[in-house]
């Protein structure tokens, strides 16, 4: 059976290498023989082989740079190339995290500005840029909420309320923080069920984790009441900011009373997803949580001389939950987000959100009627339809795979869990109307095929380098590494 692209190990031949290195050019020091390894099982290939291998591999991917990638909840928008150039400026890319602070005032200034801007955008009193992704932002936030209660001597609180539409990272985060998860139902309009919330709120509640707009792409219609209810029982409100791309310049979570929120710079602020990271998940907090932020954060030091540029330094908030990460966060991502905000300004950012929402509603308007929309109202930046019909055997996965044949990346599927065969579609603002129309037409065509030639969907995709992959088989016959097991492990 022909192989798409050999493994790099299969391209290896003893004695080859892709580098030359300088001579030691200093007197050599003998190695301590007993500490040395006997062999190193890395591939041996020349540079051209490396370039070809990874170039060819790359071509097997779908990506934003090649086509529409409407993966719901992921905000796969255009990643401006100017951001890449900015992050690679030697002054940023070659600065060492442990350099004396006075020698990296440019970095600190950038981080300080970004903190300030994110505070302004979210309506918060403090921001930490440390978290490396959304989920780490969540953990940061929940740990702060926990610490806040403990600091007040309020030790009974052990529960986190989470709507059943929430992303998996929310409950997983609560567990990691040692808290208990209480799941809240959703109402018929896709909102968190207000009565259930009220019933669940008591003095054992640390707080609520809520996503707004939620994972149905809908704005919580009772958001103010939700926040008040949680606050009334002494709980705090955590906002999962994965969906901020719908509301920048539209409404500030801090104004709505949120106590913490994580931003996904790799969603809302266009830093590239990189095939699964690196991301960046700064958190913003209300005044009462500011002292608990992970440290250090960047501050203007008091020794700044009047009329001189600010003197920046790292400071650790007094009641900090601690450090979430070595060093100061995914700095390279911060540079990109800085560039993005800098070229947009307030008007540009609001325009992004408006057009993200416009695109989603337009697409929804084209699909409504053919695809069932279980919670059908004006959506925000994304929406969820059912990928199934009573009179067809196909499931959401089949539709997803078939979309590949039409040259589109599939939407997120099977999430949120409260919609059967969910297809969660987020076009983002950077897709143009023609592309949206083509995408809609593909989905409409597929809906037709689902009824006329369901096998076409069930055996899809047909035009990709590999046909449908057997994920179940892979989990049974685990092959996670292509190297022989080391001798000592077998012993």
């Amino acid at each position, binding site marked *: 059976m022909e192989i*798409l692209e050999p493994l790099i190990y299969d391209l290896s031949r003893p004695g080859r290498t*892709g*580098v030359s290195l300088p001579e*030691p050019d200093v007197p050599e020091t003998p*190695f301590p023989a007993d500490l040395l*390894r006997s062999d190193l099982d*890395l*591939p041996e290939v020349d540079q051209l082989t*490396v370039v070809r291998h990874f170039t060819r591999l790359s*071509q097997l*991917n*779908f990506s934003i740079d090649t086509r529409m990638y409407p993966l719901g909840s992921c905000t796969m928008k255009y990643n401006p190339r100017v951001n890449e150039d900015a992050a*690679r*400026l*030697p*002054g940023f*890319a*070659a*600065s*060492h*995290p*442990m350099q*004396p602070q006075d020698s990296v005032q*440019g970095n600190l*200034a*950038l981080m300080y500005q970004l903190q300030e801007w994110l505070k302004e955008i979210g309506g918060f009193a403090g921001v930490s840029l440390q978290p*490396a992704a*959304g989920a780490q932002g969540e953990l940061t936030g929940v*740990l702060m909420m926990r610490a806040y209660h403990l600091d007040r001597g309020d030790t009974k609180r052990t529960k986190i309320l989470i709507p059943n539409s929430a992303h*998996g990272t929310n*409950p*997983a985060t609560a567990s990691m*923080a040692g808290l208990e*998860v209480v799941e809240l139902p959703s109402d018929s309009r896709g909102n968190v069920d207000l009565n259930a919330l009220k019933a669940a709120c008591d003095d054992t509640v640390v707080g609520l984790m809520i996503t707004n707009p939620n994972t149905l792409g809908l704005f919580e219609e009772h958001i103010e009441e939700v926040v008040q209810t949680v606050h009334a029982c002494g709980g705090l409100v955590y906002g999962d900011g994965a969906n901020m791309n719908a509301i920048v310049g*539209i409404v*500030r979570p801090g104004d*709505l009373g949120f106590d913490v929120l994580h931003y996904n710079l790799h969603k809302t602020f266009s830093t590239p997803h*990189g*095939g*699964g990271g690196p991301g960046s998940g700064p958190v913003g907090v209300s005044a009462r949580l500011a002292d608990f932020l992970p440290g250090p954060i960047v501050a203007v030091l008091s020794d700044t001389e009047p009329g001189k540029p600010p003197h920046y330094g790292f400071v650790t908030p007094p009641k900090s939950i601690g450090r979430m*990460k*070595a*060093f100061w*966060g995914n*700095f*390279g991502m911060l540079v990109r987000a800085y*560039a993005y905000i*800098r070229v*947009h300004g307030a008007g540009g950012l609001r325009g992004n959100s408006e057009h993200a*929402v416009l695109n989603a509603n337009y697409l929804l308007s084209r699909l409504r009627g053919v695809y069932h929309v279980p919670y059908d*109202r*004006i959506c925000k930046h994304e929406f969820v339809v059912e990928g199934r019909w009573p009179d067809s055997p196909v499931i959401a996965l089949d539709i997803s*795979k078939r979309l590949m044949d039409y040259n589109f*990346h599939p939407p997120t599927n099977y999430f949120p869990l409260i919609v059967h065969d969910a297809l969660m579609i987020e076009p983002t603002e950077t897709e143009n109307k023609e592309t949206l129309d083509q995408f809609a037409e593909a989905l409409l065509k597929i809906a037709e095929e689902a009824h006329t030639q369901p096998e076409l969907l069930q055996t899809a995709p047909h035009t990709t380098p590999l*046909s*449908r992959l057997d994920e179940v088989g892979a*989990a049974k016959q685990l092959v*996670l*590494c292509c190297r022989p097991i*080391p001798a000592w492990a077998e012993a």
Partner: protein
Amino acid sequence: MSYFPHTDTDRAEMLAAIGVKSMDELFADVPERFRYPKLNLPEALSELEALQEMRGLADSNFHTQRFPSFLGAGAYQHFSPSLVNYLIQRGEFLTAYTPYQPEVSQGTLQAIFEWQSMICALTGMEVANASHYDGATSMAEAVIMAYHHHRGKRKTVVLSPAIHPHYRQVVRTYTQGLGLKIIGDDDLTRSLEDTAKLIDRDTLIFIVQSPNFFGQIERLDGLAAQCHAVGALFCVSADPVSLGLLKPPGQYGADIVVGDGQALGLPLSFGGPYVGFFATRKEYVRKMAGRLVGEARDRNGRRGYVLTLSTREQHIRREKATSNICTNQGLMAIAATIYLATLGKHGLRRVAELCWHRSHYAAQRIAELPGYAVDMTKPFFQEFVVKCPRPVGEINDYLLYQRRLIGGYDLGQDYPHLAGHMLLAVTEMNSREDIHELVEALKEAGA
């Protein structure tokens, strides 16, 4: 500027199709009193101006490309072949997301499978995952894995005090809700031998870093047995470049090997994005956090790769998941994979050898300087501790402003008993001339 492409015509047509009159109607569900806040952000700049502004910020930094640098302390300057940076900029890698849909993500999937394989080879372990945020969070996840491995019944974590201070802090932050007792580094002067004595039947994991924060290569034989005798897991944190030369932790019985892949060709980038690696034994694979790529077959029996064992993960298992991690450091793992492929077996060893020889040469020359002393009792790799005749901050200032050299890390910041001690790193990036300049400058600074 904005990057959305809509023209007035587009907008009009789309609003009409939706059945609303204005953009505002799309936001009718947003509480009116908070709708459309005026954001106090600076005026938009063109890309040209923004880039000029940012170049100004960047240029105001000192950095390792301008001045020779001898700073390490967990982040190392190494040569990265140009193809690494080129290849990870390819849009197909850069702008894809987590490869949920394997048929259109074989590029990312196979690259990560190769990464897993190389990490296994480097560490001498059986399985490795797709990455963590960095070395510190890898270590924290190791603790959590051990905690669950013992079903929450054990409560003590023993940390070597010679683990990177940031890593030890992150372990504490991550686990603060789990009611653990973290010991070992409560006395920062404690030796590895004495630390190992703390291991007992309540110990869920014992973690050592080697080369440790001071650059010393720890002697780890016997520690695995000691842990296993009481049922604790044994975890080693390692610098991946050092593993080009040194015995892999798998060989002396580690259950988990963690570390940061930054040294594998990633830019220093003021501390991130880096990439945490995590390797363990096959028996623990279902308890491991993070994404995993496995081999699969397509409908025609052709080999391919998929994300696998996702039943461990948050999107399936929710509150019962092994971790909350979702987005990891994918592109950085790919960068490190490309780096390792390019250097290969011989290249990585050669880099490690160069770091060895040059750091030892530098240490010897510095040891000869009046007022300075270098602790060479334990074998070290690339990094070593220098006792200075004056406060480290003053010496570093002299180096930086008088000699245009980036000096070492001031250990007194984290280890009070090491006030006046500087941690210096020497890699293949530091030429003989750089070393001579450093020695000269230290001499002047110490006088």
